[in-house]
């Protein structure tokens, strides 16, 4: 607890710790005092006292948080405690343990007992209802979590044309259910964990037991278990704390809002990390090429999937290199441009007062500015800003002679290409990489371009994601994984899982559709 809190409450840390560690007492008043002292005078903390089976010798109390607990569940609990017991003439003296109470009286689906105040408090703040009854040495926990949450919607950052429309929400159990619904395999495991000293955020680690590489789940748990932080408000917190290359601009942990993507990752032998209160789940290990692949690749026919995958690879290269190549050619190596094209570029640049590098930097920064402004503003205004920025300002800048029309085209194509990359977070990283290559190309020509590009390549080759090389399966080269890297092979050829998975066989062999053979065999 921070020092200012201590001062305000007038309760040292030791006292709080002592209260939390205190076992549940048979005297109801002791437990009430402990919970009240720990929780303080919170307006949303509701207490409801009752008489067990209507017997005044057995008073009890329910604690729950308004807004976090479902009031109808609390009503059911009260009905069971007060009415059912007396209707069935149950003797409260015979319900001498919390466990008997749980098994004989409570009708809720999930009811547990607990022994210390700390256990009760952590469940209470998660939305459960606590129950204490005078004379019982244990408390009872009733699962009553229920709050207003967003419905399942299509994720706005990962659109697709063909495929499921559902996306993850901010509720962890809805998210795990969305994946479980897709994979009805008893080997699908979802292990719980809590991270965040103050937020006590629920984390779920999902994997398919006999597919995941031995040791990977332990490594994930080890890294997650090593996190010492007071709050987890989004998966980004965890992502940065478990990465293999924390200083690298490359994303070595994949994030998604799509349950089908998460399910597909699990079926490839990877581990999915769900975090409560965010619709973004994390997937490890991650490979660079996955950021360029989209779910549509698998839902459309393989010709279409492969073609658009190639288009995206081209978009990736254009997004990374086009401005640098343009600046390098126009600044240093104009003899390499075909004559007609060179004349067109030169005529456009005739009135521009800036060097090409500066012109490119201004345009790129202006583009990023418009993108960021469009993103932050309310949706209708954001669209207007984008249109005004791209059309009107661009046109005005060309007419004023501040930038050449060719530069506008280059920056526009680069921007569009960066939007073609399905992973939003990796397209942001790509946009950042553009600048060092651009500056190096604009100051040192081919030397700068080649050096920066190879330095970047060396860095990408050096990094790993949970022990797996980041550029796998191209480097190191895995021939069997090539069927789903640059191209998407037909489904009947995708009969093996990626090399790092434990069970390689994805489907039986010889599944290519074919007419029956003449002898009648299939």
């Amino acid at each position: 607890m921070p020092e200012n809190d201590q001062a305000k409450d007038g309760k040292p840390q030791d006292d709080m710790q002592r209260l939390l560690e205190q076992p549940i007492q048979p005297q109801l008043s002791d437990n009430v005092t402990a919970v009240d002292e720990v929780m303080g005078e919170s307006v949303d903390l509701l207490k409801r006292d009752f008489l067990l089976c209507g017997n005044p010798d057995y008073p009890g109390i329910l604690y729950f948080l308004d807004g976090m607990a479902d009031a109808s569940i609390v009503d059911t609990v009260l009905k069971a405690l007060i009415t059912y017991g007396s209707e069935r003439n149950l003797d409260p003296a015979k319900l001498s343990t919390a466990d008997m109470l749980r098994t004989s009286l409570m009708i809720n689906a999930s009811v547990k007992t607990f022994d210390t105040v700390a256990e009760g408090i952590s469940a209470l703040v998660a939305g459960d209802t606590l129950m204490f009854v005078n004379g019982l040495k244990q408390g009872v926990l009733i699962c009553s979590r229920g709050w207003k949450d967003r419905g399942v919607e299509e994720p706005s950052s990962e659109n697709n044309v063909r495929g499921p429309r559902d996306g993850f929400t901010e509720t962890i159990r809805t998210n795990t259910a969305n994946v479980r619904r897709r994979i009805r395999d008893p080997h699908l495991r979802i292990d719980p964990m809590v991270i965040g000293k103050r937020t006590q955020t629920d984390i779920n680690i999902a994997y398919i037991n006999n597919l995941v590489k031995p040791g990977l789940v332990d490594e994930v748990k080890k890294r997650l278990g090593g996190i010492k932080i007071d709050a987890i408000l989004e998966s980004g917190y965890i992502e940065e704390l478990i990465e293999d290359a924390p200083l690298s601009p490359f994303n070595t942990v994949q994030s998604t809002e799509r349950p089908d993507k998460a399910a597909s990752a699990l079926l490839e032998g990877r581990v999915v990390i769900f975090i409560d209160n965010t619709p973004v789940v994390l997937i490890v290990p991650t490979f660079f090429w996955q950021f360029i692949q989209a779910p549509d690749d698998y839902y459309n026919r393989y010709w279409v999937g492969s073609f658009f995958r190639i288009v995206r690879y081209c978009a990736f290269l254009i997004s990374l290199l086009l401005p640098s190549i343009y600046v390098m050619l126009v600044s240093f190596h104009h003899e390499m441009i075909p004559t007609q094209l060179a004349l067109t570029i030169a005529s456009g640049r005739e009135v521009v007062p800036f060097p090409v590098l500066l012109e490119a930097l201004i345009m790129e920064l202006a583009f990023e500015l418009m993108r960021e402004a469009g993103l932050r503003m309310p949706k209708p205004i954001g669209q207007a800003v984008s249109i005004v920025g791209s059309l009107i300002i661009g046109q005005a800048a060309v007419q004023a002679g501040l930038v050449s029309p060719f530069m506008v085209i280059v920056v526009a194509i680069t921007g569009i290409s960066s939007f073609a990359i399905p992973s939003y977070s990796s397209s942001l990283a790509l946009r950042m990489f553009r600048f060092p290559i651009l500056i190096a190309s604009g100051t040192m020509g081919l030397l700068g371009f080649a050096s920066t590009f190879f330095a970047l390549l060396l860095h990408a080759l050096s990094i790993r994601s949970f022990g797996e090389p980041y550029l796998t399966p191209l480097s190191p080269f895995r021939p069997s994984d090539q069927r789903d890297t640059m191209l998407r092979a037909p489904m009947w050829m995708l009969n093996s899982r990626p090399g790092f998975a434990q069970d390689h066989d994805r489907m039986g062999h010889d599944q290519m559709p074919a007419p029956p053979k003449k002898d009648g065999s299939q």
Partner: protein
Amino acid sequence: MKIQISNGMFIAMILNIMYAKAIGVTQGVLARTVGQDMWLATLLGTIEGIVMMYLTYLVIRRTPDKDYIQLGQLLLGRWFSSLVALVIFAFFIVAFGPVMITFVYHLRDYFLPDAPLWIFVVTSLIVGTIGCYYGLEVMGRIAVIGLLFMFALNVLITIGSMQEFDIRNLLPIMESGAPKTAKASIHYLSDCAMATMMATLVLPVVKKVDQGHGRFGVFGIMGSGMMIIIWAILEGAVLSSEVTSQYTLSCMKLARNAHMGNFLQRYEMIMIALYSLPALFEVMFCIYGTSVCMSRIFGIKSNRPMIIPCCIMLGVFGYWIIKDHFRALDFLENYWPFIALPVAIGLPLVMILLRKMLGYKLQKKSA
């Protein structure tokens, strides 16, 4: 965990370390020496290189987990291992001269004539340092990518040169005679020397090197020969040996000459961009070789602390060599082969001899 590189990576490393210099400057030297027989000199050099690589392998055959420096320690103790390290260190320092000549003159003379020389030296050393810092595994991986680039470059040059290809330019064969061609082949053999000296440090980390019976290194030299001889034949047949001999960087003349249709009249920049990777790999390995040797001499476990001091030494020597074109060419043609070959052939021979004489020591230590 001990680093290991695959056989493919090792072969790719051999190709990378030889390719840039062999197509860039060696062909011009060969053309000046034996005219249109330069492809024959390259072929002969490849065969000699295969023998030299096998000799290098023979040294570590029975101790596949030890490089030359570690083997020297086992044979004659610390002073001898330091001596071996010093010899290899000196080799890579000197080798940096031809490497810089290849890299800098290609980029400066044809693309950035106004840029100061130091920019080329410093930039290449920075990239080399990054690669060296990441270690041998990353260098192996980038070598595989470099191999793809080399294939692409060979395809581009072949397509672009086929229109002017005239086989008659290669005739008559053996005009210079066998002895002269064999003598000229030492220029190509000095390129192979870089590969064999690389193998002295890298072979122990190659996966299952003892089961390969030296064939990985041999495949590497053969692969390099195949990739490079294409240039020798194209330069002879397209440019003719007379024209080739007029250029320090004959491959650039061939690249400038190449064109695809009317629209793509010049695309040598694409080729040089592809060529930069093997050239930078050479720089990278010179840094790696020198830093490893230095760390062994000073008894430091990791080579990383030695990268910057080695870069300074390499940079100073490289800059001094390339500052004067005449000095660079003189060094390349008259000094480099006569420094490289005695080391690359002599060191394995000495080590084999010592193994024969002191083999009992190794058996005792392994027992």
